[in-house]
């Protein structure tokens, strides 16, 4: 195992501990071949690759494609070492099997912006091993010394320039022994890695052919829509389906643990009948829940010390001696992931098998949960991972809510069934980004240098009560709640971070960038407030405090330079800046905004990233663009609120998403280096809200301390 991986392991030891400590090798030479009933002429050197006599190179991808580009990036890694002809390369989603486990997390999962870095050597090794076997096959045919042969674009070539294509060699290569050890290319010789090759999945996403979970349909499969609790934790007391069950197309109405399922011939029939089921709910403890009351409680909680997360020096003494002090309370709301494709899950449950088709980020966990409900051993349950119409974390639910429910529905229906959530069901179904409060106090000395910073956080834990609770044991708090503030990079001699874990009955979950989605906002707004207190330029103020963090500095400088930080802007416009480290990557953004009649318009965002050794700069640019837009939607528009236990938002009109006419120009820049690969799906999110909020201050003189941004609430 390489150094890189050992460090990753150390970094992620909590995850590993939580998942039972199962770490598989990066690549197992001679690993059992895929149990696929294919003709023998196909070369399957390992779990990640098939080469056909038709020259097709199929890469089996162990991460879910939810837009982030893994069906392109992982094939690139393998094809690079294989020296494949890129035009012959395709992808296939992996079945659920331990050999497809995430090499660090020890389970099949797509999350934590980890697909590329976790696959970086795994997929290269798989390609290199196959290449060695193809060379051995050619050597046998030519009776040549393998060392004299080379490969290029899908062919093996000998010294006399004779060529044998991989397709022609497939049959012989299949009989070769996998090499015990492979040699990987010198990165300087990469031809594919590092280039902006086009995504492989674009064609089927622009002609209607791509199959998402919601598109799955098999003969005899019915569709179900479920009436779920209007209040979290509510239970069905009784229900009246006398009307619903006689509606057209309805085959069954049945109680399931999550509510009442209506099974019909089509979605529309199931939906109409579901709406006609009258249910008497026992609303339980959450019947009076309101977010405004909850935030009031958070404010109270923030007045007393929380669990200590980090303490450098003596923040209280330093604060007492500070020349100037400032206090600020930042608040962010619950947020929905709101994937364009609402949740769904198709299940074919038989006496001794259970097949599931869904877009999930969490295959291992979902399979185990489904097996439990089905009463089958794990091996009898298979998950076919479809394309995901967005994920953002929602499709990696520790409780496997949408999969477990679908298996219950299939059990009740007695036939194959696809459960489809309406948009309203999806939005009201929980597992939100938790609401958070950050109470921060800081001080600067007479020269304007920060001398003390105290952050106190209040909010729910994502890990508590889940299989990941073990990750909290060692530290005594949920690391995902404080990530991004516990490692505040600024050189401030006296620093305290404390956390109050709030207990609220709203199910919460990771939402693109997890804890960083609120810590980035609070810390980058507060450092800006300190800069103002010190009468310093916010960019230069940050620079002076980051001298020991060259990678932070590099992205900050790049973003500032490309944005023309010091150049004048038309009247009524101003810039804001932010920098943040998350998921092993560094990002800085400069936002340019104007404010008209209290309405914030973002004109331009310049985003600079350092994600180490990168694979596809085109996909990286797309992730930075998408991350900024995802975050800007939340910063400008989005908030989930509860009254009387009921969510007040239902659909896109009450939980708006940024649209074409509101979208800023976005420029992206990548820092070139050979550091180990970091993430890219999430790191582009945290800086957007603070960059916009800081720009709003620059243009209005008002501080934004609450999201979504409302000028009426600015201070």
């Amino acid at each position, binding site marked *: 195992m390489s150094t890189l991986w050992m460090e990753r392991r150390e970094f992620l030891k909590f995850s590993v501990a939580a998942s039972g400590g199962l770490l598989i090798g990066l690549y197992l030479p001679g690993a059992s071949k895929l149990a696929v009933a294919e003709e023998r002429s196909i070369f399957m050197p390992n779990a990640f690759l098939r080469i056909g006599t038709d020259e097709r190179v199929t890469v089996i991808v162990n991460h879910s*494609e*939810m*837009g*982030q*580009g893994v069906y392109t990036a992982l094939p690139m890694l393998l094809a690079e070492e294989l020296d494949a002809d890129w035009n012959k390369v395709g992808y296939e989603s992996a079945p659920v099997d331990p050999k497809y486990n995430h090499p660090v997390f020890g389970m099949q999962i797509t999350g934590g912006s980890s697909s590329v870095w976790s696959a970086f050597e795994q997929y290269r090794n798989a390609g290199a091993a196959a290449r060695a076997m193809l060379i051995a096959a050619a050597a046998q045919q030519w009776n040549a010394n393998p060392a004299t042969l080379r490969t290029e674009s899908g062919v093996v070539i000998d010294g006399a320039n004779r060529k044998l294509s991989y397709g022609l060699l497939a049959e012989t290569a299949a009989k070769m022994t996998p090499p015990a050890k492979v040699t990987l290319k010198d990165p300087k010789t990469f031809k594919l890695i590092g280039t*902006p090759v*086009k*995504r492989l*999945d*674009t*064609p*089927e*996403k*622009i*002609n*209607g*052919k*791509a*199959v*998402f979970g*919601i*598109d799955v*349909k098999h003969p005899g499969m019915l*569709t179900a829509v479920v009436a779920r609790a209007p209040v979290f934790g509510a239970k069905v007391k009784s229900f009246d389906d006398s009307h619903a069950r006689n509606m*057209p197309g309805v085959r069954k109405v049945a109680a399931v643990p999550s509510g009442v399922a209506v099974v019909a011939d*089509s*979605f*529309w029939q199931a939906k109409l009948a579901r709406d006609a089921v009258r249910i008497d709910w026992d609303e339980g403890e959450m019947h009076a829940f309101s977010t405004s009351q909850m935030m009031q409680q958070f404010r109270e909680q923030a007045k007393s010390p929380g669990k200590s997360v980090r303490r450098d020096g003596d923040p209280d003494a330093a604060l007492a001696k500070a020349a100037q002090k400032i206090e600020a309370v930042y608040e962010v709301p619950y947020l929905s992931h709101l*994937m*364009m*494709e*609402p949740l769904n899950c198709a299940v074919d449950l038989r006496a001794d098998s259970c097949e599931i088709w869904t877009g999930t980020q969490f295959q291992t966990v979902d399979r185990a949960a489904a097996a439990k409900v089905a009463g089958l051993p794990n091996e009898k349950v298979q998950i076919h991972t479809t*394309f*995901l*119409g*967005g*994920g*953002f974390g929602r499709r990696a639910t520790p409780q496997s809510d949408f999969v477990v429910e679908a298996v219950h529905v299939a059990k009740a229906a007695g036939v194959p069934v696809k459960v*489809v959530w*309406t*948009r309203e069901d999806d939005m009201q179904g929980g597992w939100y980004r938790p609401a958070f409060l950050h109470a921060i106090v800081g001080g600067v000395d007479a020269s304007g240098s920060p001398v003390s910073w105290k952050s106190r956080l209040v909010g729910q834990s994502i890990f508590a009560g889940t299989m990941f609770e073990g990750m909290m044991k060692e530290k005594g708090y949920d690391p995902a709640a404080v990530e991004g503030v516990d490692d505040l990079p600024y050189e401030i001699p006296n620093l305290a971070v404390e956390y109050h874990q709030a207990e609220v009955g709203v199910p919460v979950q990771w939402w693109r960038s997890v804890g960083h989605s609120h810590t980035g906002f609070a810390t980058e707004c507060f450092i800006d407030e300190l800069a103002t207190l010190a009468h310093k330029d916010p960019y230069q103020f940050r620079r002076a405090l980051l001298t020991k963090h060259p990678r932070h500095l590099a992205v900050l400088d790049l973003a500032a330079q490309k944005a023309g930080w010091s150049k004048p802007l038309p009247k009524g416009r101003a810039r804001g800046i932010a920098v943040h480290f998350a998921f092993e990557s560094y990002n800085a953004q400069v936002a340019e905004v104007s404010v008209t009649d209290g309405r914030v318009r973002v004109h331009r965002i310049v985003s600079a990233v350092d994600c180490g050794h990168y694979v596809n700069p*085109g*996909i990286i640019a*797309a992730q930075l*663009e*998408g*991350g900024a*837009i*995802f975050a800007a939607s939340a910063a400008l528009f989005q908030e989930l609120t509860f009254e009387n236990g009921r969510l007040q938002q239902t*659909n*896109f*009109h009450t939980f708006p*998403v*940024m*649209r*074409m*006419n509101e*979208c800023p*120009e*976005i420029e992206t820049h990548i820092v070139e280096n050979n550091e180990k690969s970091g993430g890219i799906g999430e790191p582009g999110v945290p800086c957007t809200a603070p960059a916009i909020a800081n720009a709003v201050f620059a243009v209005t003189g008002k501080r934004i301390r609450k999201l979504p941004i409302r000028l009426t609430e600015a201070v």
Partner: protein
Amino acid sequence: MILFSVNRQRVNLDVDPSTPLLWVLRESLGLTGTKYGCGVAQCGACTVHLNGEAIRSCVAPVSRAEGKEVTTIEGLSPDLSHPLQRAWMAEDVPQCGYCQSGQLMSAAVLLHEKPRPSDEDIDEAMTGNICRCGTYPRIRKAIHRAAAMMSTGEAK
């Protein structure tokens, strides 16, 4: 019975006339390229053409299609040759891809009506189509690219 045409093929269906066209396309005809996103004409994922006009099929009862011509993403071109599809590939537009059928169908009507659209035209035509992945900047570029291809006769 409701008689209409989909992608130049006549269909005669025995369905409840109040059923949204979206679900008839997806479930009765198996044309799953048209997507469900909101059900209330807020997101545009279900956009199809009805006699050449972009409509939200999630709120259009199938009866509205009676005697008319419906075009879905599957009928945009048989071979990815539509200028918009070529531009979408050149700009690497899709991420998750779920909204893209609707984006393309809205853009196709825009280009038909305004062969050289301005940014304001694009805003107006495309604002009803939500993309959660944030592909808007690339959609904008791709529409301009497709328009340029069409004007230089590069496209069929």
